[in-house]
């Protein structure tokens, strides 16, 4: 097996593992605040091996995620493509940052993602374009905070995985 194929398979495996963990459902509040490991994994691979993670990868992972989350088809690919682009575009600025600074970026990024997900694409609410209420807003804040807390764990975990298994 070629090194490139092996690496792609190992990266795909990390995504599959995160997708299956993300598909676990708990009680309502925990579901709302639990971090999306797929999103964090995507960010990590974009920072660690940007040449391996392209647009195609983001779209495929996003489509998988659409199915599992029951979202509109194309919604998560749209989010993932933008995130991949931003992290690759600002790769030099973000990669040397401290973990704390990266966590702050992830906090705001996931907050924006949560707000985007609350958009009422089906127009079921005639008065507003968003389904967000105060409860959703506060849970989104906690969710973003959880993402930023979990980021260092994901970062070091995947770095260990990359150094142990993925050979460039």
């Amino acid at each position, binding site marked *: 097996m070629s090194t490139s194929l092996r690496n792609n398979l190992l990266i795909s495996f990390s995504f*599959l593992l995160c*997708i*299956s*963990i*993300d*598909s*676990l*459902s708990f*009680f*309502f509040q925990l*579901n*709302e605040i*639990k971090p999306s490991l797929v999103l964090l994994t995507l960010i990590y691979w974009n920072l660690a091996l*940007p*040449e391996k993670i*392209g*647009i195609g990868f*983001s*779209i495929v992972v*996003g489509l*998988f995620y*659409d*199915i*599992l*989350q*029951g*979202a*509109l*088809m*194309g*919604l998560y*690919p*749209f989010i993932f*493509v*933008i995130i*991949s*682009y931003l992290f*690759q*575009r600002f*790769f030099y600025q973000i990669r040397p940052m401290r973990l704390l600074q990266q966590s702050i970026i992830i906090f705001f990024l996931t907050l924006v993602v949560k707000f985007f*997900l*609350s958009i*009422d*694409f*089906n127009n*079921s*609410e005639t008065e507003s374009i968003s*389904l967000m*209420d105060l*409860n*959703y807003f506060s*849970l989104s804040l906690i969710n973003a905070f959880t993402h930023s807390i979990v980021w260092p764990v994901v970062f070091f975990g995947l770095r260990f995985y990359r150094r142990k298994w993925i050979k460039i």
Partner: protein
Amino acid sequence: MSEGDHKVSKISSEAIFAERPISSSKFLVSLILCLSLIMVDLKFDTSNAFRGYLQDIFSPFYNLAEVPLVLIESFSGFVTSKQELRETIKEYQEDNNKLQVINSQLVEITRRNSELDLVWNSAQIKKEAYLLGQKMSLSANSLKPRMLLSIKNNNSVIKINQAVMSSGGIMGKITSVGRKSAEVMMVHDPRSMIPIISSTTRIHAVLQGKGLERFGKLINIKKTAKLKEGEDLYSSGLGGVFPPNFFVGKIISIQDNVDDEFLEVRVEFLGIPEEQDFFLIFTG
């Protein structure tokens, strides 16, 4: 490494190990592709046609996620000591005694069951019209809650828009069907609209969801309507999607806002079926 993978210094021809960002044209094309997918899905509901089949393929993921729990359970079962087993036997003996007392009430329960059977027959609903589905997962998306049911004896009787019920009442309707699974849009979903009738005032209305752990609302209720707080709401059967006379929710509050043309009626749905595993699909 090819030259395309990195920048090359013009002075020394050595590689500057810089990664190229995703090209803007690729990025734009991808965005247009994703937006097209969203628009097509919004306009024609295309994903519902194949989502169920994709869930069949992805069902191993749900099982994979359960593996750690199963391992922990089997491991804890393996290390159970003799003392714990004795305690368990003692608990079972106590339960047995309780069951013997409960059994003495069986005659009365049998009589009541026969009464219920009469009610069931009088309702003229065929038991065969219901199919059992087992919950596979409940999505974490609170604004668009979705439940995935695993169905063993599908035989193509399950179709889109069939109602899904729990022991408490209506839970939602099927939006996508696969070979062994079906996706259910919960009543809490903002896209869900159920024709209802109120239990005491007998007013017809349409109930719309607002998301999990949120109150639903009755839409376009005239200010002259005499609905009461605490009133139960049942499916009216209008439209033919949901069978009539099943519990849907309860009126929590009625507000008459000055700047609003209609009454604001908030409704509490049945709880989220986190603990419940089996649901009935009305195929009738």
